[in-house]
């Protein structure tokens, strides 16, 4: 379906300009989740969209070199691992599963620690969603490993 580079130079340049901004916005959305609408899911989706856009205008071959499909799966798994570890690490320090108050971060405690815990988890979610959506997309357009 998406074989080669999209031929129109306008679209190419607009997309290549747009992508960093989308990614920046995505990261903002992830980090801003504490204060307003946003968070891991939305940010992850936006990140994925940026990569999808790249796939679309660069064509599969080039885009796969820039962002290999394996990396998507790896990122997804890493995101899940971050989330899982955020759950399991507090248990090693005497808390419940996902009890951020027991995260072993020196210098912060109580609500601050929970704040950070939420941030970590949101990052994990973002990575996982990002990786997984790119993975789904790659598989749909017939990607190879």
């Amino acid at each position: 379906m998406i074989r080669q580079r999209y031929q129109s130079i306008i679209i190419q340049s607009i997309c290549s300009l747009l992508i960093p901004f989308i990614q920046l916005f995505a990261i903002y959305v992830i980090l801003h989740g504490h204060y307003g609408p946003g968070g891991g899911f939305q940010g992850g989706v936006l990140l994925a969209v940026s990569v999808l856009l790249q796939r679309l205008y660069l064509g599969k071959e080039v885009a796969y070199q820039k962002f290999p499909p394996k990396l998507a799966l790896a990122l997804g798994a890493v995101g899940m691992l971050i989330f899982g570890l955020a759950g399991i690490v507090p248990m090693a320090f005497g808390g419940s599963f996902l009890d951020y108050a027991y995260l072993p971060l020196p210098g912060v405690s109580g609500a601050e620690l929970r704040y950070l815990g939420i941030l970590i988890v949101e990052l994990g979610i973002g990575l996982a969603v990002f990786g997984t959506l790119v993975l789904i997309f790659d598989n749909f357009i017939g990607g190879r490993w």
Partner: protein
Amino acid sequence: MSSLSILILAPLLLASFLATLVGIWRLTWAYIITIIGIALSLAAASAGLFRVLQEGTLRHYLGGWPPPFGIEYVLDHLSAFMAIIIVFIGFVIVIYPPGAGLYHVPRKGVPMYGLVLLLISGLIGVVVTGDLFNLFVFLEIYSLASYALITLGGNRAVVASFRYLVLGTIAGGFYLLGIGFIYFSTGTLNMADAAQLLPALYSSPTVVAAAALIVIGMGIKLALFPLHVWLPDAHSYAPPVIAAILAAVQIEVAGYVIVRMMLTVFRPEYFIEILPITSAIGWVAAAGIIFGSLMAIAQKDFKRMLAYSTVAQVAYVGLGIGLANPLGLIGGLLHILNHAFMKSCLFLIAGGIRFQTGLHEVSQFAGLGRKMPLMMTAFTVAALSMVGIPPTCGFFSKWYLILGSVEAGNWVFVAVILTSSLLTAVYFFRILEKLFAAPPNDDEAVTKATEPSPKIVVPILVLAIGILVLGLINALIVTRVLWPVVALLPTG
């Protein structure tokens, strides 16, 4: 507070992430991690069962937030019982060689191990959670994983899986609506908390509809007749290992949810007296038992026959729920355990036969009994257990179900159970006759057949021995594990 309940689940989840990650580069490592993860989980589940037997219910507040604000994990007798069945069957499934268990191993097995682990962890999550919505999430996890795994059986399996997905989504949607009604009536999602608040609202149409929606949704998942339409295709086209775990534990988990709703969230009296839910389930299940058995007799393909047999066997669980007295429910719950062992054993045997000879139709099996004595002995044990011959475990679930039906004075159920024993005997002895007595056909597949490698035979034998052992120790299971579960039910 005890972390054992989450420790059953956490290794599975972490192992699935890790297995996916390392599987991108080295498939062997993924396999090793899978086995380690599930072994750890098995250890935790065993420890959990022992702790529960000694100390009673174990609770774990996830995130440290007490219910009803946070999510609670509850490991009581029922969930510990289910958890150990699930993990044990999962363990056997995982150590069964993929070459025999799947028709073709994906070129890179990366997603497969992860999905198998997610399937098992989803089932565990449903079983140990004490939160209504959390249950939904894990329900979807295991459903999604099973949809995907069924497709390993080829193109037909994909179609079957798609239909299962559509129906499964309806089931999930109904469940979600049901808990929505409960939530908006009570304001809580915690099961124990809802159980406190619901009695005041029992006459409310909303709560009635919630109960009905949840039971219908779970009835679809449980493949309760006439909602079973997805099951025969899905289970017969799925590769044997996957069919084994689906038939053995995946659908029974839906039965668990109904039991949980009946015992914990709503009071049993509500399901029995105020709403005629249990008797409806019972009658539907009775019809399903007969229907499934008859359809199984009509099948030529071995796995398809097993799939229809699952429709019948799962209805035994439904019948146990329908009886709603202690002995009947014990029979139903015990049948979950027994059926898990019997059906997974049979599906693994189907896989072994197909791997070794390429045969899948019953009529072609003539003469295999001599060629694969060990496998066929295991098959005989499992078949006898399905028929309900003592001292195999299958006898005892029927025994309790009959006791329950007699106690309830429900002679139709008694007749159904007894009739279905005979019908089951028809379709299993037909195969036994073929295997051992019929003149072997000259098919090259049969004449050249040999006993498969120990890797295939050992898991099957473990299950077959398990069938016998469970039969002998069933009193222990019933008195120690299941009596506390059904103690809530009204007797007589």
